């Protein structure tokens, strides 16, 4: 624990709530969520559709307004009003990779423009020669040929398009990358390539990742820590292996039991746990965010914490 405390916190989300209005009704897509991400780690936020995982990432990117709470990047608030230079710096050093490479690239622009769009916006080059060199270098980094710059997105396969999407983020020389389901729209045979690439880039470029995913088994390998989010609340957070070895919250257990494993033997003996939210008795005392084991947090009341720990 003590060693961990010395690590630099890059991003901190404090009591974040994001409300949406549906006509006159209001609901919280994200409800009082807190976590922090250390510099250099891969942090995964895992949840099912409607859990609010994407809303969290969008709030970090400033696409959604935080209704309550604060988001700190390198100790400075980025959720409210930033000064021009602050915002500029933040927007440059935080980049995003999207889920569907078929939908996220401008079909009418050449790869050269797609990849340099951020450079144009931020005027990050002195002359055409420097820009071209940057594009070329970045394309190589993501495993594409520099010649591809003169082509259009439709000429590429899904995996290659995702690489273009990654190049577009990488060219800004970011410190922090938010990847929203970067492999779930890809073909099985290509997923491994993209995961390898992201891992390689993390080391080479000294990056920090926030991974948004719905599949726990996929993030196990790449994550340092994983947070499980359910209906707008984080219910459990732990180091990746710890979470798989010793899941505490019944929702996490249900999610783990539902993952289909490529192993007929264990699938045959599968014991599917279905999470039933009514098992909690939170009417009188709401659950709190408890540290069950060092670094392993869970949303529980006292009775549950005691019970889950004993098992």
């Amino acid at each position, binding site marked *: 624990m003590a060693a961990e405390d010395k690590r630099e916190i890059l991003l901190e989300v404090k009591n974040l709530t994001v409300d949406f209005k549906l006509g006159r009704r209001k609901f919280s897509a994200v409800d009082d969520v807190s976590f922090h991400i250390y510099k250099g780690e891969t942090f995964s936020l895992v949840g099912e559709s409607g859990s609010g995982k994407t809303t969290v990432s969008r709030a970090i990117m400033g696409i959604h307004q935080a209704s309550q709470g604060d988001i700190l990047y390198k100790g400075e608030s980025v959720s409210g009003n930033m000064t021009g230079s602050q915002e500029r710096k933040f927007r440059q050093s935080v980049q995003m990779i999207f889920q569907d490479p078929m939908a996220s690239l401008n079909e009418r622009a050449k790869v050269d423009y797609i990849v340099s769009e951020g450079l144009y916006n931020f005027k990050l080059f002195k002359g055409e020669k420097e820009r071209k060199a940057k594009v070329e270098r970045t394309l190589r980094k993501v495993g594409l040929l520099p010649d591809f710059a003169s082509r259009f997105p439709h000429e590429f*396969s899904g995996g290659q398009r995702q690489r273009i999407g990654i190049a577009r983020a990488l060219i800004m020389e970011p410190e922090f990358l938010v990847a929203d389901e970067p492999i779930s729209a890809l073909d099985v*045979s290509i997923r*491994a390539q993209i995961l390898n690439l992201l891992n390689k880039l993390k080391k080479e470029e000294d990056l920090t990742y926030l991974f948004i995913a719905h599949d726990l088994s996929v993030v196990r390998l790449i994550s340092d820590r994983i947070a499980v989010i359910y209906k707008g609340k984080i219910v459990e957070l732990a180091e990746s*292996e710890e979470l798989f070895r*010793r899941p505490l919250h019944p929702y996490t257990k249900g*999610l783990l*039991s539902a993952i*289909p494993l*490529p192993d007929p033997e264990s*699938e045959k003996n599968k014991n599917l746990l279905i999470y039933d939210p009514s098992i909690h008795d939170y009417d009188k005392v709401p659950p709190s965010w408890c540290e069950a084991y060092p670094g392993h947090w869970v949303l529980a009341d006292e009775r549950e914490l005691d019970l889950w720990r004993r098992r």
Partner: protein
Amino acid sequence: MTETREKILRVEDVVIRFNLRGKELTAVRSASLDLYKGETLAIVGESGSGKSVFTKSFLGMLDKNGRVASGNILFEGENLAEFTREEQWLKIRGRKIAMIFQDPMTALNPLKTIGEQIREVITLHRGMNRQEAREEALAMLGKVGIGDAAQRYGQYPHEFSGGMRQRVVIAIAAACRPDILICDEPTTALDVTIQAQILENLKELQREMGMSIIFITHDLGVVANVADRVAVMYAGEIVEYGRTPEVFYDPRHPYSWALLASLPQLGEKGEDLYTIHGTPPNLFKEIKGDAFAPRNPRALKIDFEEAPPWFAVSDTHFAKTWLLHESAPEVEAPKIIQRLKEKSLKGLDYGS
């Protein structure tokens, strides 16, 4: 053991061609399969491998520019490959062989209540009257795991979540009591917890009604869960098939190795995942030799020259690879494949 079971469908050397702007594309290149009564056969492969097109040909659902160029699809004494008129298909499609797809919304009529949509199928195919059909429809809804069937009966598709819609689609398909249900990636768009529940429902439904299922997916985890047998498809042909444990624990075709080895679930922390290089072959061109050879780092010289025939690994397990030829050199499967078997002995399951 398998010989004693009844073969319900026999597909032999089917070739499917499409005409695209004057050019001929061969989507399925001589694929064969047998389906036994009451079993689940999974067809696995990446997109473009021809798995959907192949199974669509069993119900006459190929797009207009596509045709079964040769081969036989034998079902109940008829050769479906020779069907030419829509009336012939109407006796088979839905009634004997039904199919469900990935996106449940395209299969449902947004303007009709789901009760009507199930009842309609039952009255049409099974000749029940309105009241009987209603009761049968309610029973079907219960069977696919929709609680509160009586209330749900009168609701419209937009009032259902994605998972619930897929259950409705399954109910509609199963309501005709087909002999064969073809499921084309039915749970791919759903959350894992919902997926797991629907797979359970489907298996239960199968046990109850005794139908055979062809399950198309790219998710080997789902295959391990539902399938009795697996066929691995690549570039329009089946390259390996066998009982599920045989294909998972003792795969023989390099493509099966690659597909299994590249699964993120099987990776080890700190190691690069196994990747398949290159892209699938161009189906407009004729493919010489083993279609996977250009992407196979362990390919033999003969793989580029001559297409491999089937080799038997056991009575139930076959693979189309020269590696099984008696004079082939010893080529080891990737480490991760060997590990899969060991892992399974230790128990791979999570959170226990």
